[in-house]
């Protein structure tokens, strides 16, 4: 997906077993932080025509 120009941090993968609640909370924090830095997703959102744009 980076190839087409989406930011790398828009897509995260991780591997957490069901016993790793602490790791889950950690990774969740990291992901949220990284996306906050990126800011809102503007590229791939489908914009439906509204009254203003028509």
């Amino acid at each position: 997906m980076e190839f087409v120009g989406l930011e790398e941090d828009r897509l995260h993968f991780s591997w957490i077993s069901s016993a790793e609640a602490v790791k889950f909370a950690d990774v969740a924090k990291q992901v949220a932080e990284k996306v906050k830095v990126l800011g809102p997703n503007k590229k791939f959102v489908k914009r439906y025509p509204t009254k203003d744009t028509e």
Partner: protein
Amino acid sequence: MSEYEPKIVSFLCNWCSYGAADLAGVSRFQYPDNFRVIRIPCTGRMSPKFFLSALREGADAVWVSG
């Protein structure tokens, strides 16, 4: 509402990360509330269609966890 709060769609495997999320909740661990969780039967169920759909509908990021 001054600080930007992203919307992150997370696809969690029923047997791994969904369990972990459940355990984290039961154990009262604090973690950010930016996530909208979708439980999938297995990470093998994940398809590129899913994250493209999520982004199209306005998600800020996607997190896949198995």
